[in-house]
């Protein structure tokens, strides 16, 4: 049974056209992460939520926003996608922080193409 679900799996958008990616989880985990992964690179953390507390990475562009309306769902909004935003976007969850020895469960990802 899927535990971290991402929709859609593939998303095509036009340059500058807002797009929203969604993530849901059935694990009831406290923490939800959004990563950006480009080809042959490690996942790059954009931001995360611990419950309703939002934590933005310092180098995440303002173009990227997130919402977590409830425990199960988290959204990634890209307000004005540029060509450089084409990537795989991974959602991950964990019960607690990895520094407390908790591990992350990744969703299958959404591959974003920007035309």
């Amino acid at each position: 049974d899927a535990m971290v679900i991402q929709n859609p799996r593939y998303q095509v958008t036009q340059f500058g056209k807002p797009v929203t990616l969604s993530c849901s989880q059935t694990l009831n985990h406290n923490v939800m992460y959004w990563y950006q992964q480009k080809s042959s690179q490690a996942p790059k953390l954009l931001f995360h939520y611990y419950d309703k507390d939002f934590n933005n990475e310092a180098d995440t562009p303002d173009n990227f926003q997130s919402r977590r309306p409830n425990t199960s769902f988290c959204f990634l909004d890209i307000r004005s996608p540029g060509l450089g935003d084409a990537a795989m976007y991974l959602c991950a969850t964990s019960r607690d922080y990895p520094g407390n020895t908790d591990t992350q469960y990744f969703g299958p990802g959404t591959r974003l193409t920007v035309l």
Partner: protein
Amino acid sequence: GQQVMQIPQYQHVQEGEDFTTYCNSSTTLSNIQWYKQRPGGHPVFLIQLVKSGEVKKQKRLTFQFGEAKKNSSLHITATQTTDVGTYFCAGNLIQGAQKLVFGQGTRLTINP
């Protein structure tokens, strides 16, 4: 910022050969985790090491955490085609750290 360095970036082996990837941090780690990402897939948790000098095995995979908790390795004995993928280490600088710091990953390809 904290960095976790991983080498090699790429490794190509013949099926049946062994494979090792290494992870190094300039600072002591609270714990280290290993993930595998198959081509076109997403990272999947393999194992976590917490104690100094810890060694864990999963079938043909052996994971080690250095005595100083600054380095770690993953060794695969007698590789199989199912081992193809990118292996990432991810460290935590301090207890309670909010995020994983990923190494660059080692991409393993295998000639059958």
